[in-house]
C-alpha cells in the first residue's frame, strides 16, 4: 500500500478542523512539534489502497507568519527535511474569502509544492445565494477544486478521491520584481536553493529557522548589499498578488444581486453592543462558573464515593501498616483527588470549545481588548486567562495566538495566578477546616471565601501584568486585527474531541506526578539513618520508661517519621516556614506539592498516616486533629489556614506549568523570574497574614 503525507492548510475560520475531523475520524492524535509546544494534530485514513497521513497545520492568512503558530506553516512547508513536510497540500478556503485562500494557495504552489484546493462551507454560500464556477477556478489554479461542506459531510468523499490528483503545469502568478532579482540570484547561488520564490521568501521572512548559520549569514549579506527590508518585501508581494488576483478571479464567484442582511450582523448588533455586549458576556461567565460548581456536583459526589469505597476496601484487604497507607491514602486518594476534577474541567472546556466553535470567542477578544490593554495585555489574552481557571498548562499554550511578543510574554507570566482546578482541593479542605460554616446575609460564608480566592487570583494576575508592563520594553508595536467570523452552530463532534483531548491530557499528566510523588514520599518516610529512626523503640523506652503500650506505639511511629529522610527534609525547612505558621509536617507538604498543588492534600494524608497507627480516620479528620508541636495549637487554625490559602493562591507550585512556560517563552530567565516572583510574593503574603492574625 502506498503511503502519502498530506497537509491541511487554510485561513482561520474556514472549518479546517472540521474537514480534518471528517477525514480522520477518531484516528487522530494531538502532539507537539519538536522543541515547541504548538499543538500538532495528525491522523490517518485509507482510501483506494492508499494510506494518507494527514497533518492539520495551524490557520494562517499567508506564508509570512504574524504569530508563533503561523510560523509552523512556513517551517513545515519550506523545509524538505522536516518530518512533517507533505507530499501534497490541501488548501482550504471559504466561498466568501476565496481571494485570500487563493493568495495562500499560490504562495504554496510557487514554493514548488503540489496542492489541491477545497472550498468549504458551501452550504452557507448556497443559503446566501453565492455560487462558484468550479471549472473556471480550476483553470486559474491549475489544479483540482473540490466543494465541501464538512459540517454535514458533503463533498468529503470527492475530496478523498481528489487526493490522488497529480497537479502540474502551474505558472507562477507573482513575478519577482526586477529590482530584486539580483538579490534572489545571490541567494540561489549562496544557499543552494534552486526555487526562485523560496529564495525570495528567504529574503522576506523575518526568520528562517530551518537554515544553518552560514545560510542565514548569506541572507543577511544579501539584505545589506541590496538595502532590503523584509517587511517591505512582504508588502510588495501582498499588493502585487492581490492586484493580479482581482483579474484572475473575475467571474469565479457569482454573488446574488440582492444583498440580504446576514444573521450574524443582527446578532452582533446585540452581542458586541457597547453595553449589552458586556452584560451578556459577564452573564455568560457567571453561568459558566455556576455550571462548573452546580452541574459537576452529582458527578463529583459519585467519584468521591467510588474512591472512598475503593480506598476502604483496599484498606481492609491489605495488611495494616505503611504499605496500606501508601496505597489507600497516597495513591488511591491522590488519583481520586485528580479524577474528581474531571467533571469541572470537562464542563469548562465544553463552554470554551462551544465559544470557539460558534465564533463567539472572537467577540470576547473584541470586547475585552480595550479593558486588558492598560495592563499590557491584548484582547486575545482573555482566552488564556479564562482557560487558566481550569488549568494553566493549556492556558499558557493558548497564548501563542497573541502576535505581540510583549503581550504574549505578560499573558504567559500572569496566567498561573488564575485559580486553576488544582488549587481547589486545597482551598476546599482548608476552608472547611478553618472557616466556620455560617451564613452571612443569607450567603454561605465558606462559599464567599472561595469566591474571594477566585477574585484574588484575577487581581493578582492583572496587578502583576500592570507591573510587568511598566518594566518591559517591546520591540514591536502592538496591534489588533481580528476577524469576526459568522456565527455557526457548533459541531458536536469537534467539541467532544476537544474536551476529550484536554481532559485526558490534564488527568494523565497530573496522575503520573501524583503516583510518582506518593511512592517517593512513602520511601522517604519509611527509611532513615538517624539513630532515633533505626533504634526508635530503645530511645523511646529509655526516655519515657513508664509509657503505656498504645502510647508507646504512637510515640515510636511519630519519632520514626520525624527522623526519617522525609522528616529530616521537613525539619530542614521548618525555620523558613515557621513564621508562616506551619510545622515540619506541613513543610513536607509544601516540598512535595512543588510538583503540583493538588499533591498537598494527599501528602498530608500520607504523612499523618505514617506518623500514626490509627487507620480509621479520613484525611480531613486527621488534619483537624493534628497539633502543631511548636505552638501547641491545632496545625490548621484560622491564622495558619489563611496563611496557607494565600500561599497556594500565589506560589508557583506546579512543575508542569514551569516546564510549559520554559518551552513557550524559550527563556530560563523569564521562567525563573516568574517562579521567584510568584513564590516570593506568596511567602510575604502568607507571612504578613499569619503574623497579623495569630
Amino acid at each position, binding site marked *: 500500500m502506498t503511503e502519502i503525507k498530506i497537509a491541511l492548510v487554510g485561513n482561520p*475560520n474556514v472549518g479546517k478542523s472540521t474537514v480534518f475531523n471528517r477525514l480522520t475520524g477518531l484516528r487522530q492524535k494531538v502532539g507537539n512539534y519538536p522543541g515547541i509546544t504548538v499543538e500538532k494534530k495528525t491522523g490517518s485514513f485509507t482510501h483506494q489502497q492508499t494510506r494518507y497521513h494527514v497533518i492539520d497545520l495551524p490557520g494562517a*492568512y*499567508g506564508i*509570512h507568519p*504574524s504569530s508563533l503558530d503561523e510560523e509552523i506553516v512556513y517551517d513545515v512547508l519550506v523545509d524538505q527535511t522536516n518530518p512533517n513536510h507533505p507530499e501534497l497540500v490541501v488548501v482550504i478556503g471559504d466561498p*466568501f*474569502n476565496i*481571494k*485570500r485562500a487563493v*493568495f495562500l494557495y499560490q504562495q504554496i504552489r510557487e514554493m514548488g509544492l503540489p496542492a489541491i484546493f477545497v472550498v468549504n462551507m458551501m452550504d*452557507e454560500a448556497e443559503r*446566501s445565494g453565492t455560487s462558484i464556477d468550479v471549472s473556471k477556478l480550476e483553470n486559474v489554479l491549475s489544479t483540482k477544486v473540490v466543494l465541501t461542506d464538512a459540517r454535514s459531510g458533503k463533498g468529503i468523499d470527492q475530496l478523498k478521491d481528489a487526493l490522488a490528483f497529480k497537479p502540474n503545469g502551474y505558472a507562477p502568478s507573482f513575478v519577482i520584481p526586477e529590482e530584486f532579482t539580483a538579490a534572489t540570484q545571490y541567494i540561489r547561488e549562496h544557499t543552494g536553493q534552486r526555487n526562485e520564490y523560496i529564495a525570495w521568501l528567504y529574503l522576506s521572512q523575518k526568520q528562517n529557522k530551518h537554515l544553518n548559520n552560514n545560510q542565514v549569514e548569506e541572507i543577511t549579506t544579501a539584505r545589506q548589499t541590496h538595502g532590503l527590508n523584509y*517587511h*517591505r518585501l*512582504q*508588502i510588495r508581494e*501582498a*499588493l502585487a498578488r*492581490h492586484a493580479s488576483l482581482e483579474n484572475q478571479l473575475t467571474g469565479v464567484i457569482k*454573488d446574488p444581486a440582492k444583498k440580504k442582511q*446576514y444573521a*450574524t*450582523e443582527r446578532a*452582533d448588533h446585540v452581542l*458586541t*453592543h*457597547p453595553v449589552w*455586549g458586556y452584560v451578556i458576556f459577564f452573564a455568560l461567565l457567571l453561568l459558566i462558573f455556576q455550571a462548573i460548581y452546580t452541574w459537576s456536583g452529582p458527578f463529583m459526589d459519585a467519584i468521591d464515593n467510588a474512591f472512598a469505597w475503593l480506598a476502604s476496601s483496599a484498606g481492609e484487604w491489605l495488611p495494616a501498616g505503611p504499605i496500606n497507607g501508601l496505597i489507600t491514602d497516597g495513591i488511591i486518594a491522590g488519583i481520586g483527588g485528580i479524577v474528581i476534577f474531571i467533571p469541572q474541567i470537562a464542563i469548562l472546556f465544553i463552554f470554551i470549545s462551544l465559544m470557539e466553535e460558534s465564533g463567539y470567542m*472572537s467577540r470576547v*477578544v*473584541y*470586547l475585552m*481588548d*480595550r479593558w486588558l490593554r492598560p495592563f499590557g495585555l491584548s*484582547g486575545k489574552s482573555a482566552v488564556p486567562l479564562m482557560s487558566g481557571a481550569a488549568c494553566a498548562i493549556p492556558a499558557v499554550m493558548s497564548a501563542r495566538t497573541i*502576535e505581540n511578543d510583549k503581550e504574549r510574554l505578560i499573558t504567559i507570566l500572569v496566567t498561573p495566578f488564575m485559580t486553576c482546578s488544582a488549587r481547589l482541593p486545597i482551598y476546599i479542605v482548608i476552608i472547611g477546616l478553618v472557616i466556620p460554616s455560617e451564613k452571612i446575609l443569607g450567603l454561605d460564608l465558606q462559599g464567599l471565601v472561595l469566591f474571594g480566592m477566585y477574585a484574588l487570583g484575577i487581581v493578582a494576575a492583572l496587578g502583576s501584568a500592570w507591573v510587568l508592563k511598566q518594566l518591559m520594553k517591546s520591540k514591536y*508595536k502592538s*496591534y*489588533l*486585527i*481580528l*476577524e*469576526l*467570523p*459568522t456565527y455557526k452552530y457548533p459541531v458536536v463532534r469537534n467539541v467532544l474531541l476537544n474536551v476529550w483531548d484536554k481532559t485526558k491530557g490534564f488527568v494523565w499528566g497530573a496522575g503520573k506526578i501524583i503516583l510518582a510523588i506518593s511512592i517517593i514520599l512513602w520511601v522517604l518516610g519509611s527509611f532513615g539513618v538517624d539513630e532515633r529512626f533505626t533504634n526508635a523503640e530503645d530511645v523511646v523506652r529509655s526516655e519515657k520508661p513508664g509509657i503505656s503500650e498504645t502510647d508507646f506505639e504512637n510515640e515510636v511511629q511519630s519519632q520514626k517519621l520525624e527522623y526519617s529522610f522525609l522528616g529530616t527534609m521537613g525539619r530542614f525547612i521548618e525555620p523558613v516556614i515557621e513564621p508562616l505558621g506551619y510545622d515540619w509536617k506541613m513543610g513536607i507538604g509544601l516540598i512535595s506539592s512543588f510538583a503540583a498543588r493538588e499533591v498537598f492534600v494527599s501528602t498530608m494524608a500520607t504523612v499523618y498516616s505514617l506518623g500514626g497507627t490509627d487507620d480509621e480516620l479520613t484525611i480531613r479528620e486527621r488534619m483537624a486533629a493534628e497539633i502543631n508541636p511548636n505552638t501547641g495549637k491545632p496545625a490548621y487554625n484560622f491564622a495558619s489556614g489563611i496563611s496557607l490559602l494565600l500561599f497556594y493562591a500565589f506560589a508557583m507550585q506546579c512543575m508542569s506549568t514551569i516546564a510549559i512556560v520554559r518551552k513557550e517563552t524559550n527563556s530560563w530567565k523569564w521562567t525563573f523570574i516568574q517562579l521567584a516572583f510568584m513564590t516570593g510574593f506568596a511567602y510575604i503574603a502568607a507571612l504578613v497574614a499569619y503574623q497579623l492574625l495569630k
Partner: protein
Amino acid sequence: MSQHKSINQLQNGETATIVGYLSDEIPIKIYEMGLLPGVTLTKKQQLPFNGPVYLRIQDNPNAIALRKSEADLILIESIL
C-alpha cells in the same frame, strides 16, 4: 494623501473605500486580511473609551475589528 480621512473618522453606519495607508510600517496582516485599496467597508460600531472599531467589508459575511491605532493608518474616501 493628507486630505484623506482615516477609518477612525467614520461615523457609525458610514461607508467608505480604502485609498491608501498613512505609513509603510503597517502589519502584513492588514494586507492579508484583504484591507486593500479599492475595498469598500462600513463602520458598524465602536466600543467605548476609544475601543476597537467593528467593520464590515463589502460582500463578506465575516467582520473585521481593528484597534484605533490601526484604524488611524488606513486612509479612506467616503461614499455619499
